[in-house]
């Protein structure tokens, strides 16, 4: 498989990976086939796991984002998905432009070949000679210390962010696995949406996503073809025509 050839350490973040996949699979960056991109991206993540590489949270976040776009596209109001897709495309276009510009600029780099001198060491009086109003100091201090007077809502946001960083380590995927299994024991099946319901915390969303991924990988659960429903593998009654891609591969 293509993915094997990935040298994982050469990627600078998830957008970089996506750009690479888009080029490699000749996808149209102005109208990306999300499902295809997602498929390739998941293969990439799988490969990373195989190589025992620990991917930064942002890589998993991107997976969650792609899945979200793909899923949202199936919802009654696909506008949001469309919007998110556009935004992602915008980001990718911008980054690819930036990369092209960087390559062009790099060719002009003569920095290592031009030499300059240090200033001559002449004894000169460098004492500052301008005069300012003392209020200039207050202004300058305000520029830094505005950070000090933090509005309450911002404080919360910061706390939340710090927590989310901390939580990413504390809340293991396992808790989400348990959560999902519990849901499934109770109802037999659960909509993907419901798993994410009320989960606004970034790390928790990632954990949920990973939990689903893990459970699928170990063949414990199956995801419906349209990625909206999760159920115990082989235990799904009535609508057996819904075969997951994973199980048909196996």
């Amino acid at each position, binding site marked *: 498989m293509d993915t094997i050839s990935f040298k994982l350490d050469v990627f600078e973040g998830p957008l970089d990976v996506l750009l690479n996949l888009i080029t490699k699979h000749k996808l149209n960056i102005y109208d990306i086939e999300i499902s295809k991109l997602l498929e390739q991206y998941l293969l990439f993540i799988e490969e990373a796991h195989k190589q025992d590489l620990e991917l930064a949270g942002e890589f998993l976040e991107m997976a969650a984002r792609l899945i979200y776009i793909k899923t949202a596209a199936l919802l009654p109001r696909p506008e949001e998905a469309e919007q998110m897709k556009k935004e992602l495309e915008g980001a990718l276009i911008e*980054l690819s432009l930036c990369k092209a510009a960087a390559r062009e600029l*790099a060719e002009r780099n003569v920095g290592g070949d031009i030499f300059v001198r240090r200033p*001559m060491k002449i004894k000169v009086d460098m004492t500052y000679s301008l005069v300012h109003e003392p209020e200039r100091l207050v202004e300058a201090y305000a520029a830094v210390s505005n950070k000090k007077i933090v509005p309450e809502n911002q404080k919360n946001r910061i706390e939340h962010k710090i927590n989310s960083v901390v939580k990413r380590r504390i809340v293991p995927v396992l808790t989400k696995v348990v959560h999902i299994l519990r849901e499934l024991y109770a109802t037999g099946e659960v909509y993907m949406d419901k798993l994410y319901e009320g989960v606004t915390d970034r790390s928790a969303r990632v954990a949920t996503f990973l939990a689903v991924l893990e459970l699928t990988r170990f063949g414990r659960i199956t995801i419906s073809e349209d990625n909206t429903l999760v159920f115990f593998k082989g235990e799904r009654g009535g609508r057996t025509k819904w075969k997951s891609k994973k199980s048909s591969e196996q």
Partner: protein
Amino acid sequence: MEIKEKLGAVEAVLFASGEPIELYRISEACGVEVGSVPSLIKLLNERYDDCGSGICIKKLDSSYQMCTREEFAPQIKTALETKKSTPLSNAAMETLTIIAYNQPVSKGFVENVRGVDSSSVVNNLVEKGLVEEAGRLDVPGKPIIYKTTPVFLRSFGLSSIADLPPLPGHENVTTDDEGEQISFDTVTDEESDNAETITTNTEAAEDAAEHDISD
């Protein structure tokens, strides 16, 4: 004062200063009209060209700096025993490009474009003298914004930011409706701190538009 003497003075001042020195400072120090400085420097450069000199004077924004000619890099490197200069990494080049084309911008802006934390890359560019602080953005958190330096201009053979090569295929991207598209920042979880990014971004887009016209 004879022109010969003026030339000598300008040359001596440029040599002694080492760093880029503003046009007005040259004028003040050498007692010549501000307006005549560029022509004096042109004369000096012509003289250097004529005799195949090892040095030349480069214009960097409104400053001038005396430096060696690229072609003598091998000899200088041998003489100074400088180790091979490591080229900038892709990450550094990307970050530098983002700052160069959108300056002044915050680390957050760079991070949004690249999709990864870019703080250490920016710090590294500051250390290399390629970018520097340019004040703070007037939004909550007061992030420091960065711009490129004369070292950047010199290193990339530019005499001002206006000389940056046009963005490849940027006519496709900066058209009006795509300006919309670039506001991708809204998606990230950090919606809140993107007010900043969006503003800068819009400015960047406008800049680009202006740039288009002036091209």
